[in-house]
């Protein structure tokens, strides 16, 4: 009978020793900040779904109007207020215009305004806020007093009046939105730049002789990119809503051009008889805003995990 506590047979084992070269090797691929953010975003199923929805709408805005032979402005007196059918997939409006092509032409306008207005806002606000935050002093003082004063002005009222003064249309809508909305972004960027400019890496860059412009563009801005992108993303639904609101009260896009807000306005006039005419624009406005909100939340979590709400 063998003793239980016998030492194991050493010949079965082999000494490995230290792998000095392998110790420093990096096992996993080295991910950049953006690859890492993309990986986190992909893991968020809601955000991916939202991204697909937004992508689908953008694609449809480009190709949708070409999928049917009806022009979005062509009227047809024999087929007014038609219900959806094989010929007119979403039906027609009170002048017999095909709603499928109008909805997707409207998507072009609404999405374009949403993206362009927000992008310009970020550029203008980011530039002003960045410069004010970086230089501080008198520039900052003056700017912040201006922002303090302008911040309290109800932007929608000014936007409404500007729309009356200017020729109605897409360009005017974008101008009205940028003029009234850059303040929020400027405020935000200023605060962030002030926070980051005290960091050691900025001091290091300065010691190495980097110019102000280099520090601001190469060192500070890349560090704020995640936050700025998140904020911009969150502002897009707002811009789309503002366009819809202004067009809805009759001050935005004018027929025969169209946008989702204008289609909602046209559809609302015959709500009790033809509810579908309001349903389509309402559905697309709401789902776009929903998808953009979800995508914004996902981006926030992916770009700055510390801010995760949970």
């Amino acid at each position: 009978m063998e003793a239980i506590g016998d030492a194991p047979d050493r010949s079965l084992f082999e000494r490995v020793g230290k792998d000095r070269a392998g110790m420093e090797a990096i096992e996993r691929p080295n991910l950049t900040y953006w690859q890492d953010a993309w990986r986190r975003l992909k893991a968020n199923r809601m955000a991916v779904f939202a991204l697909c929805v937004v992508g689908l709408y953008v694609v449809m805005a480009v190709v949708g109007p070409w999928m049917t032979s009806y022009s979005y402005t062509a009227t047809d007196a024999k087929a007014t207020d038609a219900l959806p059918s094989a010929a007119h997939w979403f039906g027609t409006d009170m002048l017999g215009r095909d709603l499928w092509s109008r909805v997707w032409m409207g998507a072009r306008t609404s999405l374009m305004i949403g993206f362009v207005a927000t992008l310009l806002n970020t550029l203008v606000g980011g530039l002003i806020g960045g410069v004010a935050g970086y230089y501080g002093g008198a520039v900052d003082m003056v700017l912040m007093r201006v922002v303090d004063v302008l911040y309290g002005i109800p932007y929608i009222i000014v936007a409404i009046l500007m729309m009356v003064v200017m020729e109605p249309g897409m360009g005017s809508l974008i101008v009205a939105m940028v003029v009234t909305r850059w303040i929020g972004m400027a405020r935000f960027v200023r605060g962030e730049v002030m926070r980051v400019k005290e960091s050691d890496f900025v001091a290091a860059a300065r010691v190495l002789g980097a110019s102000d412009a280099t520090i601001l563009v190469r060192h500070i801005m890349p560090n704020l990119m995640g936050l700025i992108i998140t904020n911009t993303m969150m502002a897009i639904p707002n811009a789309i809503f503002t366009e819809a609101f202004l067009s809805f009260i009759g001050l935005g896009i004018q027929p025969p051009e169209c946008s989702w807000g204008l289609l909602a306005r046209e559809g609302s006039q015959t709500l009790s008889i033809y509810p579908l005419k309001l349903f389509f624009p309402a559905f697309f406005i709401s789902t776009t805003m929903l998808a953009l909100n979800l995508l914004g939340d996902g981006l926030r979590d992916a770009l700055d995990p510390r801010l995760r709400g949970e």
Partner: protein
Amino acid sequence: MGRYILKRILISLATLLVLVTVVFALVRLMPGDPFSSEKMTPQVRQNLERYYGFDKPVLEQYLTYMGRLVRGDLGYSMKYANVTVNEIIAKAFPYSADLGLRALAIAVSVGLTLGVVSALNRKKPIDAVCVVVAIIGTSIPDFIMGYVLQYFFGIRWGLLPIAQYKGFAYTILPSVGLGFYTLALVSRLMRSSMLEVVQQDYVKTARAKGASRFRIVRKHMIRNAILPIVTVLGPITASVLTGTFVIESIFAIPGMGKFYVSSVQSLDYTLVLGMTVFFGAFLVTANLIVDVLYGIVDPRIRVARG
């Protein structure tokens, strides 16, 4: 505290001055004029222009207007004969105020409740329901919400009146339509604010000392979690006010929003100006109150904002 309030008041006055000036300029830049109509003769037009002071230089008109404004006189409407802007506001504002207050009451009470319930039942079905309501609510523009409510509850099922404002039943749809977005926003904010508070040491301390769950939630958690909500009260008031522009049109309520949109379209200079000044003063005051309130509720702010 006194210095802080004084500074806020000065900023608010400057905001108002800028607003009035900008709006005055914008209104004059509008194409067309309020007197254009087919029956207009040159003589009548001249008399009207003299009556409203349009024959004078713009700067003089501006100073005259500001002079009257200081005394609270907003002038005569240009479309409604012999009616002053003050009278129109006095007639329309109660409707809007009533509607807005109802909407705010629904939004804040239901929104806070949803947020608290949702945070306390984290990862349970009820939380999921609240989160979905919040996300959907912040994604549907108020004019669409208004029409959806009007169509289903009014036209389709015939449960509630679809227009006008003549009693409690009439107020339900417009105030829910107006308040839904805010409700969703408040519940979302309250939920994340509560979730943050749950992890705080003072909550653990209270639990360790044996305070009842109800007491902890009511006295320790909600009181602290509600602070961030106070900051958004200003923007919320602004968004409810904007919402009245469309909700009042949808439900045919003779309030400020409906008048405002129609006066802009008919280029009624004095009415547009007067109502904008009124809206502006209202919002600026609301923001001022919120700022001061926040300074009182959270003493840390006063030092930071100085």
